[in-house]
């Protein structure tokens, strides 16, 4: 209605909080609040609590119940509940196009007459009927303003009606609006859930008498009928809906299974289901990371061109603080944000296609059985898989999980899955210390360690912090459909923009902060001047060939970078922390490099190169490798890998976790917890390793 169409179904990307928008039609301006989809008001899942609280706490001028017209019987139940509560309702018969395709017929006028509310056929996809719907809402708001709403009376059978008739007058003093009396009486009779949350007019705690009476009636009725009264009420309500549908809906005779059912015989089959899912996930991964690579490369090239261009505003070799701020701080930070955009765009495109085509629900069905045992929800697999590429989009992919507990559990353990930025660290260190034959098994071992720790972590969190039982899992399986392109693109753009706006700004700010830490305080002139003079002299030396001269200048540049870093706050903190990390076999140089790795994991190598005064990059990683081999033992190398695998997540992960969880608490706890875990595990490995090697 507001143009920003929400996704359908009570699964992926569910409206986490109520979305709001504004729409203008003629003389009317509507404030529209979009609530999560739900089948009923009274059961107790998270979605339903949100809807109930919103509907009963706020005074709306009108409530639009968007139903699936192709499954009217299932969707009118909520409308009946809303009408029993006296909500000013307009029913939208959505997916109207599908009804005609399937050959069904719905008597819209009759339905409207029977329920006493406007009913408007719509198609969210083509936008058909939206204008009529808004007009109906506008008219309703004008006509009924300030009036009491006629209530819908569902006949609950002789006994319940008698009890309600008797409890009604008792309930009257407890409710602020008379139309709530019946609802309130039914509610106390049912006895489920705190009533205050259900009705803004109800002041039940003042009526203990009513509750006692209701409890007695309930016991009597349940004894006679042999079933819970809530069940009887729901059944009667459903019977009412069924009788309504019998009058207004003409279903076509269906003999053949639908195309979706036929497709599912293969896609959900016992033997082919999982391999096909694996194939689809492989494609998603390839698309997200392999296809994005040229885009990432192009972006990096563009940015480094920009940096060079900006650097040329100052004289070559200038030590200006502004130059460093703009070129290394700000543009470097922009690079740190931009680098994620291609991956996020493509990932969200894949996720949107999976969601909207209807496959996501089925994937969950296939996986739930296996992941359930690991303490993870069925859809937790997708973020985990994405996590092997990059933790940032992976955290965003947890939006497909329904419950907050599931999301937090998954996000908390996600950094344990080795992202692609860590791979160069592993390979460089492994190749520095271990023979070629050992490298592949060790690399597998590192990845596996991460996965095992993630699974154990998820189980532990589930058993301790997030103990709530998994929400009852009911899901409608939609027919497969072709995802509409414009909606896909809009969704992808919205999510990417949200990333840039929220996490992006935080990443930029942290980048600049970390840059400042690594350059401040600046080297005093009396220390800097001789080094610069030496470099200038080296440039002028005539006794060397051009290449030798360049090499000398490069070496002097590296020394300068090392001295600057050692002098900076980051270098000093690194040195200061060295005693803390000494038991893990890390010296001040490694500690400084680890601090720098908070910017991004791959920065670790660059920092290591700086603190060791060696070159870094494709042509010179050999020298870093040699330098590492000279300074450290294989055990220290392995410990460094372990610490990178488990330890503090990078700042982009931190920022995105802050965005996705909406609080600072969880990202801070995660950073602290993972660092402590990394410290503990690395300590044990290093000490045990040292003992074993000394034997």
């Amino acid at each position, binding site marked *: 209605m507001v143009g920003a169409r929400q996704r359908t179904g009570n699964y992926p990307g569910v409206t986490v909080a109520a979305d709001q928008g504004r729409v203008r039609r003629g003389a009317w301006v509507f404030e529209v609040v979009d609530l999560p989809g739900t*089948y*009923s008001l*009274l*059961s*107790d*899942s998270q979605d339903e609590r949100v809807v109930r609280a919103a509907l009963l706490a706020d005074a709306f001028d009108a409530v639009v119940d968007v139903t699936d017209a192709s*499954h009217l*019987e*299932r969707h009118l*139940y*909520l409308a009946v509940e809303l009408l029993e509560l006296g909500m000013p309702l307009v029913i939208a018969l959505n997916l109207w196009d599908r009804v005609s395709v399937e050959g069904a017929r719905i008597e819209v006028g009759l339905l409207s007459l029977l329920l006493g509310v406007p009913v408007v056929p719509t198609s969210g996809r083509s936008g058909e009927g939206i204008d009529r719907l808004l007009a109906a809402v506008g008219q309703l708001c004008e006509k009924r303003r300030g009036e009491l709403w006629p209530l819908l009376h569902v006949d609950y059978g002789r006994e319940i009606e008698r009890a309600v008739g008797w409890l009604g007058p008792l309930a009257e003093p407890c409710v602020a609006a008379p139309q709530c009396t019946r609802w309130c009486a039914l509610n106390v009779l*049912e006895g*489920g859930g705190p009533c205050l949350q259900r009705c803004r007019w109800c002041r039940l705690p003042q009526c203990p008498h009513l509750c006692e009476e209701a409890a007695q009636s309930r016991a009597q009725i349940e004894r006679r009928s042999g*079933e*819970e009264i*809530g*069940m009887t009420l*729901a*059944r009667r*309500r*459903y019977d009412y*809906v*069924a009788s309504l549908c019998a009058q207004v809906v003409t*279903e076509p005779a*269906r003999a053949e299974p639908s195309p979706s*059912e036929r497709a*599912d015989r293969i896609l*959900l*089959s*016992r033997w082919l289901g999982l391999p096909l899912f694996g194939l689809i996930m492989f494609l998603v991964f390839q698309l997200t990371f392999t296809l994005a690579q040229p885009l990432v490369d192009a972006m990096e090239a563009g940015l480094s061109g920009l940096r060079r261009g900006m650097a040329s505003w100052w004289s070559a070799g200038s030590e200006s603080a502004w130059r460093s701020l703009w070129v290394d701080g700000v543009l470097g930070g922009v690079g740190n944000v931009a680098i994620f955009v291609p991956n996020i765009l493509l990932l969200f495109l894949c996720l949107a296609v999976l969601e909207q085509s209807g496959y996501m*629900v089925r994937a*969950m*069905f296939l996986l*739930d*059985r296996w992941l*359930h045992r690991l303490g993870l929800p*069925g859809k937790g697999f997708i973020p985990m898989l994405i996590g092997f590429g990059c933790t940032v989009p992976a955290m965003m992919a947890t939006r497909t999980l329904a419950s907050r507990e599931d999301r937090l559990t998954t996000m908390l353990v996600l950094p344990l899955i080795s992202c692609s930025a860590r791979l160069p660290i592993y390979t460089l260190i492994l190749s520095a210390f271990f023979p070629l034959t050992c490298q592949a098994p060790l690399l597998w071992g590192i990845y596996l360690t991460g996965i095992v720790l993630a699974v154990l972590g998820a189980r532990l969190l589930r058993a301790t912090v997030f103990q709530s039982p*998994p929400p*009852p*899992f*009911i*899901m*409608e*399986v939609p027919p497969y459909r072709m995802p509409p392109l414009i909606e896909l693109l809009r969704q992808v753009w919205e999510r990417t923009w949200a990333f840039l706006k929220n996490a992006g700004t935080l990443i930029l700010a942290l980048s600049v902060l970390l840059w400042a830490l690594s350059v401040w305080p600046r080297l005093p002139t009396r220390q800097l001047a001789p080094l610069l003079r030496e470099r200038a002299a080296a440039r002028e030396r005539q006794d060397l060939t051009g290449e030798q001269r360049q090499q000398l200048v490069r070496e002097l540049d590296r020394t300068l970078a090392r001295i600057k870093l050692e002098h900076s706050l980051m270098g000093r903190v690194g040195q200061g922390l060295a005693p803390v990390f000494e038991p893990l076999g890390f010296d001040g140089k490694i500690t400084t490099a680890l601090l720098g790795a908070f910017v991004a994991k791959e920065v670790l190598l660059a920092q290591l190169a700086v603190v060791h005064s060696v070159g870094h990059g494709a042509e010179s990683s050999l020298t870093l490798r040699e330098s590492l081999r000279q300074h450290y033992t294989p055990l220290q190398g392995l410990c460094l890998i372990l610490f990178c695998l488990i330890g503090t997540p990078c700042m982009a992960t931190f920022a995105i976790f802050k965005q996705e969880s909406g609080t600072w608490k969880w990202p801070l706890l995660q950073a602290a917890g993972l660092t402590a875990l990394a410290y503990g595990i690395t300590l044990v490995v290093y000490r045990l390793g040292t003992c074993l090697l000394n034997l």
Partner: protein
Amino acid sequence: MRLGRAAPGRLLELVRLQSGLGLAQRLAALGLVPGARFTLESGGRRGPVLISFQGTRLILGHGMAERIMVRLAGKDAP
């Protein structure tokens, strides 16, 4: 028998719900009340189930399927 243990492809009738109020109401809102008939399409054995009911297909979690008592119905009835 429990829905979670039934064989796929059969027409089943819901007999009883072994559960608290919340679940019963949630199912009843979908029309899944004692006496309702549906086909078990696939699943079971420690996993979720997929049922086909009045033109809609629904996935029910394993925990839920274990608490729904069913019997064979129609031509599948013993």
